[in-house]
């Protein structure tokens, strides 16, 4: 598995080169959100709004009304917590193309509760007119902008920064999951950084004879992908969701809604942040503490299928993950 650095920062410059309508708004976190390369490349299309996110959100709506497409860059919490009323009334209500790029989802920062976005998907999903996308690898990060740009309305993107693995080769497709493996015992639906973590476990579980259907989810709203419904339907023992987000209102809730409304009658286990705040610690530590790690996933599978798999933590550490074609080579693991 290759690791890439500052993926969004470099991609944004390349991607926006021929899109003169694209502007970037920032609230004093320009380098922290990798928008510094855009700022230096296109100073006329970059706007610093200071530490004043409420104004920035409404301001962006004002510019969007004139035909520009603002891409707001800041930490996710400062979009949906600090400026939710502005997101709702200035951007979402008018259904205008304000694109919000929110960084530092959940455990990806040791910055503590003030910086860790754990309920952003929940809040953004409940806003009418809002589209919600999440990235899980370098390819997602590079191609999510195309998906967001095509939508003529507000879009919230849960973005990754810094060192990011490349798990997938094909571009992100709006409202379509990436099929990482097919199987019939367990259906595993993961999003964001949890997909890479889950892939460590699924590789070993398959070797132990567990048939796992694993999809990576990048569109949280709308949540109407028939491929996902089919995957849920075929699970013999049950469905597991794994997300770097509260289990209230995120991927797990989306799946629960599908199971209930479609009458799929499947047991669902939601791995995620169990209705409590995070705190300042490393990603690995927090993933373990909150049970969004490969070990917890394996234990959960064992419980659901009623069988011990005897996979050790050291075995998990040695797993090598290769990038996959999500569509053309479904069994590429």
């Amino acid at each position, binding site marked *: 598995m290759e690791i890439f650095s500052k993926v969004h920062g470099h991609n944004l410059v390349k991607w926006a080169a021929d899109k003169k309508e694209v502007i970037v708004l920032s609230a004093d976190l320009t380098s922290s959100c990798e928008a510094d390369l855009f700022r230096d490349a296109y100073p006329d299309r970059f*706007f610093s*709004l*200071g530490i*004043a996110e*409420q*104004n920035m*959100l*409404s*301001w*962006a*709506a*004002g*510019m*969007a*009304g*004139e*035909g*520009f497409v603002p891409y707001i860059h800041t930490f996710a919490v400062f979009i949906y917590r600090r400026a939710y*009323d*502005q997101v709702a*009334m*200035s951007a979402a*209500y*008018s*259904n205008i193309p304000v694109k919000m790029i929110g960084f530092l989802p959940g455990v990806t920062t040791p910055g503590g509760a003030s910086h860790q976005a754990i309920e952003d998907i929940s809040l953004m999903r409940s806003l*009418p*007119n809002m589209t919600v996308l999440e990235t899980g690898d370098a390819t997602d990060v590079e191609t999510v902008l195309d998906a967001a740009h095509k939508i*003529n*309305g507000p879009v919230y993107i849960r973005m990754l920064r810094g060192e990011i693995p490349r798990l997938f080769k094909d571009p992100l497709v709006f409202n379509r999951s990436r099929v990482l493996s097919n199987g019939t015992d367990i259906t595993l639906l993961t999003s964001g950084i949890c997909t890479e973590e889950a892939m460590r476990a699924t590789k070993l579980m398959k070797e132990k004879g567990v048939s796992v259907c694993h999809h990576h989810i990048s569109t949280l709203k709308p949540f109407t992908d028939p491929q996902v419904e089919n995957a849920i339907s075929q699970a013999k023992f049950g469905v597991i969701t794994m997300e770097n987000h509260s289990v209230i209102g995120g991927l797990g809730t989306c799946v629960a809604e599908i199971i209930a409304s479609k009458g799929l009658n499947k047991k669902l286990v939601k791995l995620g942040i169990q209705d409590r705040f995070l705190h300042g610690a490393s990603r690995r530590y927090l993933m373990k503490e909150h049970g969004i790690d490969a070990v917890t996933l394996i234990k959960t599978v064992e419980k659901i299928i009623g069988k011990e798999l005897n996979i050790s933590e050291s075995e998990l550490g040695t797993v090598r993950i290769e990038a996959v074609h999500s569509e053309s080579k479904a069994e590429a693991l």
Partner: protein
Amino acid sequence: MNIQRIQHVADNIRKRVLTHVISQNGGYMSQACSSAETFSALYLHIMSMPELDTPLKPGLFQGVPSADNMSYKTGAEYNGGHVEGFDRFYLSPAHYALVVYALLIETGRMTADGLDYFNRDGYSVEMIGAEHSPGMEVTAGSLGQCISRAAGSALARKMKNDNGNNFVYLSDGEFQIGQTWEAIQAASHYKLDNLIIFADMNGQQCDGPVGNVMEMGSVADRLRSFGAEVVTVDGHDIEALCKSVETPHENKVLAVLCKTDPCRGLEILRRNAPKLHYLRFKSDSEKAEYTQILNELGGK
């Protein structure tokens, strides 16, 4: 400047709003009293707005904006729509909607029966205006957001070399909101001299006198320290209102603070002080008193 005409329209706004408040047994009356001259001067003299061929008739509510519903008529069409080089009007305190509706009728931008649809289910002439309501650019009911949107638009218009101005009408209570100052700070940073604020300094807000709810000291001083050019005028002096925009403000936001009387032209309203935000008749006899005053004013 035709002071007589502007005053005539202002008087008619008060009468029309009073008529309506009586018929509805309540409404935002003091807002009309304090702002009538300002609105009239803005629409008839200060702003350059595209003329309409005929007054527009408010239709049925066309639904909230969504991916499937983006071609509905917005309130901006009553102001002549978005035309390069022309001014735009942003009403921030959306509860002044009734005053704006009366203004649109008096200036020939809305049909006279427009107010018949006020607050009527299924129509766009809502009590607290939204972007589909006559005269409204944006959905501004959550106070403090409108100025940011107007400023963002002003910056974008400069980028497009469109030299029209964006006028924002604020209520004085909005100077208590953090976002208002965030917006002025950023508008000063980007030297938005195409952003012009008119503020109704009537000293009243929902809970009572502004100073009791939250003392702000000198708003003019605060604005100046945030980089704006400020001019304070008697908000009932039409000549002063009209001249205020001639104040040089190169590279600066211009803020016109209109000192107003929330009971102007309707002395009886003073009995309700300091609770002037919303007029509700306490008895039939009180309503009769207002009706008699309306008749004396010549009705509408």
